[in-house]
């Protein structure tokens, strides 16, 4: 009896379920691996592009001629249809779960992202932690076709570039799909996406990250340039690490000093005083002295303070540029509306309707505390005799 129960309750479902699994499991060699996925819009149709890795072992890849990927495009009335129609030409099943980079075409952005948000949030094959990048001045397939130096797949290259530049130069903030969707869905904050462009270097086409696309909700509003993007990064609520500041050398305006930012934390607080809303922005940042192009001794007590002041001024300037540009676009990319909602819920419910207009006229009081910490291998400026 006990034995019979075991067979009926456990073994039989287990064996039967083996017959049901055809739609789930698929052999590795019948799949194609998409390293990058892109969505675009053209003339009433949605276009899905994928960069598929050619299957090869490391050994084969090294000896292979030409690109190690193929780029496929397909049109459809919806993104899902376009993506599925790919199976009409491709004998393998493209699998998206390795695509860490998600490109959005410029045309699609100008059209407004509202039509693809649902696809991006609902489709289980799209990774929520994939990085969102907007193509500027090029279509996604063109970006995918670029032969990036040292990295066989441009989609992977974009991700690595975004990750490394944040540490090394600190201009753009990588945006994951999850963050983007959250920002779209949350009142009082507007999303941004870093942009990728194709540049020409001695006739060879290269990819570069340039500018940040600003959205008002899902509507494309404009872009931030490099300095504004840097200011935007300083204003983000998380602690940021890495990045450079180039400031004029004290006492020699033609020469410069490079400061590396170790960490920076912004605290933004809305203040409601006598019927007027102001944003209190406080930045606590730390940096290291990295190099100087002037030959004057800079690391003494007077210039040290001056260097800190100049750095603080530089940060403040970049933030002001970012704020004024965002206010110009009426896009609350800093999430100030959300902060207001948290701090003064009744006021937020009053102003929520015309928040873009109010945001564009907001005054921000910026206060930067910058501290210079270390000077690396030597604590004096190099003396040339």
């Amino acid at each position, binding site marked *: 009896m006990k034995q019979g129960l075991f067979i009926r309750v456990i073994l039989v479902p287990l064996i039967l*379920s083996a017959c049901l699994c055809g739609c789930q499991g698929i052999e590795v060699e019948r799949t194609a691996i998409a390293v990058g996925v892109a969505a675009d819009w053209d003339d009433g149709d949605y276009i899905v592009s994928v960069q598929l890795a050619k299957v090869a*072992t490391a050994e084969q890849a090294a000896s292979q001629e030409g690109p190690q990927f193929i780029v496929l495009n397909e049109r459809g009335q919806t993104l899902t249809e376009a993506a599925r129609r790919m199976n009409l030409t491709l004998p393998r099943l493209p699998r998206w779960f390795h695509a860490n980079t998600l490109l959005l075409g410029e045309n699609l952005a100008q059209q407004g992202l509202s039509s693809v948000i649902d696809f991006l949030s609902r489709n289980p094959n799209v990774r929520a932690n994939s990085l969102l990048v907007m193509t500027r001045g090029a279509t996604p397939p063109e970006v995918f076709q670029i032969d990036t130096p040292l990295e066989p797949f441009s989609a992977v290259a974009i991700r690595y570039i975004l990750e490394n530049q944040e540490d090394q130069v600190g201009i753009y903030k990588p945006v994951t799909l999850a963050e983007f969707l959250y920002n779209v869905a949350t009142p009082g904050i507007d999303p941004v996406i870093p942009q990728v462009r194709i540049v020409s270097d001695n006739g060879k086409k290269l990819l570069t990250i340039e500018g940040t696309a600003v959205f008002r909700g899902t509507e494309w509003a404009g872009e931030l340039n490099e300095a504004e993007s840097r200011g935007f990064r300083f204003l983000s609520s998380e602690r940021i690490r890495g990045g450079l500041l180039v400031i004029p050398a004290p006492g020699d305006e033609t020469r410069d000093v490079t400061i590396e930012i170790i960490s920076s934390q912004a605290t933004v607080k809305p203040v409601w005083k006598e019927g007027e809303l102001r944003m209190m922005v406080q930045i606590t940042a730390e940096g290291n002295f990295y190099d100087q192009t002037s030959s004057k001794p800079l690391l003494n007590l007077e210039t040290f303070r001056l260097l800190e002041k100049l750095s603080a001024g530089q940060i403040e300037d970049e933030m002001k540029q970012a704020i004024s540009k965002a206010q110009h676009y009426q896009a609350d990319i800093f999430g100030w509306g959300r902060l207001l909602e948290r701090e003064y819920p009744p006021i937020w419910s009053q102003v929520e309707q015309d928040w873009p207009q109010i945001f564009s006229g907001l005054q921000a009081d910026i206060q930067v505390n910058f501290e210079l910490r270390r000077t690396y291998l030597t604590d004096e400026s190099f003396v040339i005799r």
Partner: protein
Amino acid sequence: MRYLNSKPAPESSDPHELIDQNITGIIKTDQANLEAILQNCSDIIIKPFQFGNPPIAGMLLYFDGLVDRQEVEINLLKPLMLEMAMLCSQNGGLHEDVLEHVRYRILTMADLKVVKDYNSICHHISSGDTVFLIDGIKEALVAGTRSWKGRGVESPENEVVVFGPKEAFTETLRFNTAMIRRRIKSVNLKMEGYVIGRVTKTDVVLCYVSGIVPPNLVNKVRSRLSSIDTDGILDTEYLNSFIADTKNTIFTQVENTEKPDRVCGHLLEGRMAILVDGSPTAMILPISFPQFWIAAEDYYTPYVPASLYRIGRFIAFLMALLAPSIYVAVTTYHQEMIPTALYLTIAASRQGVPFPIFVEAFLMEATFELLREAGLRLPRAVGPAVSIVGALIIGDAAVQAGLVSTPMVVVVAFTGIASFVAPNYNAALIIRTARFAFLIAAAALGFMGIMIVLILMLIRMASLSSLGMPYLSPLAPFNWSQLSDIIVRRPWYLANQRPYMEGMENQVRQGAKGEQE
């Protein structure tokens, strides 16, 4: 020396009835009866002789090859024939109680017994004793003259150690008990003898240290041993199926070892060992599953490396159990879990492989088991050749021919190596058997299948017991203090208490109170 195999049996007497009769005391009848009982036994030696003055008829019986011939001649025949004459002449006649005289005054042997029936005579001569019958006396004298050519004590073949004792049990029971006794010089080391097997009449010894072992467990084993009714016991494994709490399972509830030091370690922790004559392995019980990944060597190396190796062994144990099924599940169902570069490599090497991954894995695992089995059975001279042909040629050629993919070979090889990490052969067998169940479940349902089988396996293991001791203890039921000798190996100065067992009277191993560590 006379061989009586050609002699016809006495007319009316049936040997099967004769054997239950008592000794008649008339030497001629006894001889005829015994010859009838032992007919067609070419190795029996029956030697009638006369001794004393006036001469008394006597008879010696033994099986050739089982006794020490020199001892029979010097310690039995010589005193009888020479000293008896001396003794009788002093009294001027034959003594009333010949047997008593022979036993206590004449024979110089220590191991002497008296038996009364043919059955016992036959049992003793089969065991290598010499039986001595005297005319007119209804009893027979049994002299312990057992001595035969056995394998000497060698180093263990399956449980190889770098440090620590390198003695292994042999097929001779007495050597084995001596090896244990030499390590535990205490009268509390008890060795209860049993004779099991209707035909084989095999000597079985139950070892334990009284005062440490829970008495109820000894009673349990005693009653299970005495209730065994079978034709023959040729190895300790025969007893396993009679003694185990649950018979119908792949999880052995005993541990087999060929190392006397390991047996002693277990005895000192309150467990019992069963030795069987003719078998070079001892059976330890009760045992719990976590003990299968404890190696004897852990206790002979410093505790930090020993603990690390033990943890590593546990991981290897899991890998040996799960690696092929995880590979199958991941590559068929959960491809998003593989790093992109690895995915590309796997997909590339799978190009042109004609079988689905599951079939590939199953075939490779089966091939590996086959090679392992072949390597075990082959004569030593051919062994290396098979491993070269198997591992190198078949493995390499199969990949070259595109029959299997390279990652599969790597997984199977890794699994094989990991399964050899198990210090105990019983554990390795469990892994090898269960691995295929996991493989099938992974092919059917991916990770869900693996989890289902894993849970079923754990449920099964948790429901098992070894002599009433939970099979998964001390993991389930959980006992924190005992984990210090399961997951890691604690240093000896902290091991004040023995592992807990139900009914244990004396848990203190060292220190005044054996305070909780």
